[in-house]
């Protein structure tokens, strides 16, 4: 193994802003986002792909930030929960999670919101089973999941006009 690993210059778009950094090969994208850019909504639970807490959007699709290297961010367009929240694109989901009590400690919530936004973008009116399947890679140790499925179902119903809440 090289004693002094080469640093890799990268340039990427994160939450709409161009970011240039030098990263170490062994640095994960999750660590880069949290420790260098202060984007701490990307939570780290297991650091090996099992829990979903570190979910981000990489080139338009959800991905585990703990399984991507910071070096792989070069040339990529990345969105974290902070960006999705600031842009307002997940506002309805956030409101529904709040109203239904779909979070307690909130550790799993950033990953769940991004996963929920992806399934609703592709299936505007998913069944409860489809919602559960979309969340299968996300562990929540607090809620027991029912309220999370309810909140996503309510968001879909409101958006498709099936419900009359907004």
């Amino acid at each position, binding site marked *: *193994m090289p004693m002094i690993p080469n640093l890799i210059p990268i340039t990427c778009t994160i939450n709409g802003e161009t970011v240039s950094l030098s990263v170490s090969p062994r640095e994960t994208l999750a660590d880069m986002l949290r420790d260098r850019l202060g984007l701490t909504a990307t939570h780290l639970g297991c650091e090996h792909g099992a829990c*979903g807490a570190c979910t981000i959007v990489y080139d338009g699709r959800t991905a585990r930030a703990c*399984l991507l290297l910071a070096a792989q961010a070069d040339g990529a367009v990345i969105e974290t929960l902070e960006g999705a929240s600031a842009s307002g694109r997940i506002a309805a989901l956030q409101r529904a999670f709040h109203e239904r009590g779909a979070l307690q400690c909130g550790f799993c919530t950033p990953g769940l919101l991004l996963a929920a936004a992806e399934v609703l973008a592709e299936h505007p009116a998913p069944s409860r089973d489809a919602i559960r399947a979309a969340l299968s890679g996300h562990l929540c140790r607090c809620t027991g999941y029912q309220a999370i499925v309810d909140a996503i179902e309510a968001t879909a119903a409101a958006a498709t006009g099936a419900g009359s809440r907004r």
Partner: protein
Amino acid sequence: MKPAAFDYVRATSLTHALDLLASADPDGETRVLAGGQSLVPLMAMRLAAPARLVDINRLAALERLEVIDGRLVIGALVRHHRLATDPRVASAAPLLARAATQVAHPAIRNRGTFGGSLAHADPAAAFPACALALGATLTLASAAGRREVPATAFFEGLYQTALRPDELLVEVAVPAATAASRSAFVIFTRRPGDFPVAGLAAVARAADDRSAVDRLADIRLAVFGVGDTPLLADTAAAILESGPIDAARIDAAVAALDTLEIRDSATASVRYRRHLVGVALRRATAALLRPEAVACR
């Protein structure tokens, strides 16, 4: 849960990648980085500590997906999500399209690649079994040239394949499904998205005589998640092919699975797995007998 130090090189062309694989790194092993959904967890847990990673993710040449000369050609970098959603896969290889919806979780499927799954050769992985059932041909390339390896010769053992350290899996070809093709995919998982406790990928062809609705030809059964590699259940397939498929013939085929080398795990005994494989064969057979059916679970 942090990987040990390594060097990272992003390959800029197929030739560049093959040259990097051909030039041994004095510090140790060079590994290909595809979706990273198996390799990066192994590195985080220090079960793998390569000296150098060759990142192939920007090689558009490996993203090929097309039907040509009666075969579906799938580039090594085609991701699980694309297999699950591309209409060409749905029509030319419905078995793969169905399996791809059952592998891991959405975010993993967005990154994980078909080539990576075959090269990794996890005994419980779905795609190696599908490749075996479909009679896939794998194209391996090195700086010295290319060779084609049938799936039956590719999976050598637990996480062991015919790939040499200097070789890259470039693409995989499977015969495109016809109107007579049937397939079935059955898995038993503890939770959706987990690696299965047992699974079966099955393909067959409807009998030439269309009135013989209880006959099937060219049956290939690949059992997975129960041994060191996916296993072809040839004897059971031959029994099912040998006549009208009735309850007695199905019982005989299930009994023939007893010769498979099934192993236990921390959560599943050999007896339990043997039972599940039998149930999988019964469900798959029922599905194969129904036109247009790709069954699941």
